């Protein structure tokens, strides 16, 4: 009997020990998530999509993340470009949303943001996403921002090896990509990624024309690191149908837009404590838009418009952090030179001689950010950024001032974060310099805001209550002729979000969020009360990862209410081979955006899904 008991104890301990090594590895993998190293809870109100989240949610495109960002929703403008704050027929509205790949800003100098090009980019080389809402730390942005999306790439240190992936979806949409990375014996770390994707969507018959929203993308990213030097190269080529084109009065026969974007950056950290850093970044982008109409357009009287655009940007950033016993100070200097040329326009093959108001902009920024620990649990942050915008030709210069004050109180499980900020947004070139619709006399928009976040966290529960109020002076809106104007009266927003994240069993997670954003302006076009609910469940059972998400959205201007139910299952045939199926907007009940296509004799709209119903099958293999 004793022998059986001893054998039983031995077998049990063997089993437990074996499982313990496995559990340790699983726990170690989870605790080694890169997001735990890069996130900065003190920098702003933060939403994180960890690598585990992205993998189990089968995030294929950045829009899969942006469609459920707190207060913001994924929208596209009438040209089919991602534009989260879209207010049709205004051509573009998301200039205050900034996107970064590691520490390099992705952006188009004409628009002041990279969302239009990268808002639906492929995500297979991305490790995790951090979204800072409100006005985050100046460390994160060279220009003021309402929302900063930070994408962190996978690292050679963790992802040594290679991976190929194939995806097919309805309408013959497809995506193929490969990455390979390693750290060599000489400690040179490299990561190389290449992607091709064809995103084919429904086409729409309207006024005897066929409107398309298809896009074809090639993307390449590479990084090289050694001894705290990092060199990155990011290239994207995209060709897309521009759906309705920019005119709200006509339906095009054909509309296309081609983009090419190349960005290289070099960064280094100096000193033993790596407290001094610099980054030099250069980007060049080219775009060509063509739109053709069957008959000459009313008001503008042309049948074909061709426009070339070129932009070059050089950015230099240096920062020094001084650390003392109870405080730290960051001193930063940033310089950015922008060149943009988008007045090369032909109407019916005849070159338009109108010139843009200016074509260069030099931005000088100096910031100082102090973090002071009053006690171990009380942190005060004070930040000030002085900027100078120097434009050529006769364009007026600007000298905005950005201010930020924060107070963070941490108790055992409860954290309170308060952020007060004042920021000035200088209108971007597409608003000021554009021929015909640009308004060089625009004044900066001024945002004064307060955000209060309460956060309660236990081992299994994370809950948040976030309240915010923003006053906007000189709000920018298009007038009846399409020219951007400063609103004469204040525009205010009130927002609240209540969130719960519940972790159960080993890896299962349930998230629920209810949020509202109330936008009150002087123009009837922008008054709105958005109310959204998000429910998300991530389960891992045996070799299956299961994802379910419902996003319910109501109250958007010129948008039909809807709910988007998406779900997916990922099956690990073995640790290196994964087969996935996913449905997006499965019941085809998601938000539908109304776009204006006729204003005479009556206004008429076409309504199309923001995110179309889509079913995907993918296979990935690691080797």
């Amino acid at each position, binding site marked *: 009997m004793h022998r059986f008991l001893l054998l039983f104890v031995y077998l049990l301990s063997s089993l*437990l020990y074996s499982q*313990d090594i496995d559990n340790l590895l699983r*726990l170690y*993998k989870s*605790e080694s998530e890169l997001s735990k190293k890069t996130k900065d809870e003190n920098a702003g109100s933060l939403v994180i999509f960890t690598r585990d989240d992205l993998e189990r949610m089968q995030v294929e495109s950045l829009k899969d993340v942006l469609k459920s960002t707190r207060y913001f929703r994924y929208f596209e403008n009438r040209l089919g470009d991602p534009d989260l704050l879209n207010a049709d027929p205004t051509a573009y509205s998301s200039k205050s949303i900034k996107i970064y790949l590691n520490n390099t800003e992705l952006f188009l100098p004409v628009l002041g943001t990279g969302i239009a090009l990268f808002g639906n980019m492929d995500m297979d080389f991305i490790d995790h996403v951090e979204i800072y809402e409100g006005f985050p730390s100046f460390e994160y942005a060279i220009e003021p921002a309402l929302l900063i999306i930070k994408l962190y790439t*996978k690292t050679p240190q963790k*992802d*040594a*090896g290679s991976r190929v992936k194939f995806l097919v979806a309805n309408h013959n949409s497809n995506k193929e990509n490969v990455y390979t990375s390693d750290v060599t014996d000489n400690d040179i770390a490299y990561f190389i990624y290449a992607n091709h994707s064809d995103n084919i969507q429904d086409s729409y018959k309207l006024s005897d024309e066929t409107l398309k929203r298809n896009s074809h993308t090639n993307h390449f990213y590479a990084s090289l690191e050694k001894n705290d030097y990092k060199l990155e190269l990011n290239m994207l080529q995209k060709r897309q149908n521009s759906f309705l084109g920019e005119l709200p009065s006509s339906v095009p026969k054909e509309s296309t837009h081609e983009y090419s974007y190349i960005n290289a950056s070099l960064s280094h950290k100096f000193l033993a404590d790596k407290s001094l850093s610099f980054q030099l970044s250069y980007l060049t982008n080219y775009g060509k838009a063509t739109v053709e109409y069957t008959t000459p357009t009313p008001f503008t009287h042309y049948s074909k418009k061709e426009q070339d655009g070129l932009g070059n940007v050089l950015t230099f950033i240096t920062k020094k952090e001084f650390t003392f016993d109870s405080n730290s100070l960051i001193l930063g200097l940033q310089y950015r030179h922008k060149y943009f040329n988008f007045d090369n326009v032909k109407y019916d093959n005849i070159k338009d001689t109108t010139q843009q108001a200016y074509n260069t902009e030099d931005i000088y920024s100096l910031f100082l950010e102090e973090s002071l620990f009053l006690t171990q649990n009380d942190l005060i942050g004070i930040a000030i950024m002085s900027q100078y915008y120097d434009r050529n030709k006769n364009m007026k210069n600007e000298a905005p001032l950005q201010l930020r004050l924060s107070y963070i109180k941490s108790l055992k499980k409860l954290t309170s974060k308060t952020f007060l900020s004042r920021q000035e947004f200088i209108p971007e070139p597409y608003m000021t310099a554009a021929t015909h619709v640009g308004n060089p006399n625009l004044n900066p928009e001024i945002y004064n805001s307060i955000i209060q976040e309460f956060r309660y966290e236990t081992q299994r529960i994370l809950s948040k209550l976030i309240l915010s109020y923003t006053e906007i002076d000189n709000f920018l809106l298009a007038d009846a002729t399409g020219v951007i104007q400063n609103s004469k009266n204040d525009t205010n927003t009130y927002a609240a979000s209540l969130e719960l994240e519940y972790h159960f069993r080993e890896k299962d997670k349930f998230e629920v969020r209810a949020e509202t954003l109330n936008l009150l302006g002087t123009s009837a076009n922008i008054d709105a009360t958005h109310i959204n609910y998000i429910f998300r469940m991530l389960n891992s059972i045996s070799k299956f990862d299961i994802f379910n998400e419902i996003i319910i959205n109501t109250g958007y201007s010129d948008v039909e209410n809807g709910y988007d139910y998406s779900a997916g299952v990922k099956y690990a045939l073995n640790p290196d081979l994964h087969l996935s199926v996913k449905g997006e907007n499965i019941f085809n009940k998601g938000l539908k955006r109304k776009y204006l296509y006729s204003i005479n004799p009556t206004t008429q709209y076409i309504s199309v899904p923001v995110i179309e119903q889509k079913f995907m099958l993918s296979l990935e293999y*690691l080797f």
Partner: protein
Amino acid sequence: MKIFLILLFLTTIIQAKDKDLRLESTIYYALIKELTHSQRPKIYLADNVLSIQKFSSRFNLVKNCENANIIIVTHIKNIDSECKDKILFGTKYQTLDNKSVVGAFFWQKGRPNILFYQTRLTKYGIQLSKHFTKYIDNEK
């Protein structure tokens, strides 16, 4: 059973700070202990291994590789010739290219991996317990 209790204890006392490094150190301890059959193994670090250096209380770190039970290595070139007969354990997959390295604990394909080669274990007369069988591979 004792090892299990130690591991369980070590796992439960893990604090929030540097949790990943603490866990990495714990895993190294379990692996090295299994290879050396020593409760407090004498180890020599041929290269920096932050987790072991930072959480070193369970290890007996020696400054001379000749006094070590085992050598943890990232770059084979950093091992003195007189110590190449010691048990070598790698922190990178590439270290396994050297036939003297019995196994490695490394990140690859986005996940942590443990790998031992049976022939190399046999060469050093190392018999791993059954719990590690799934981490042992036959060299091609």
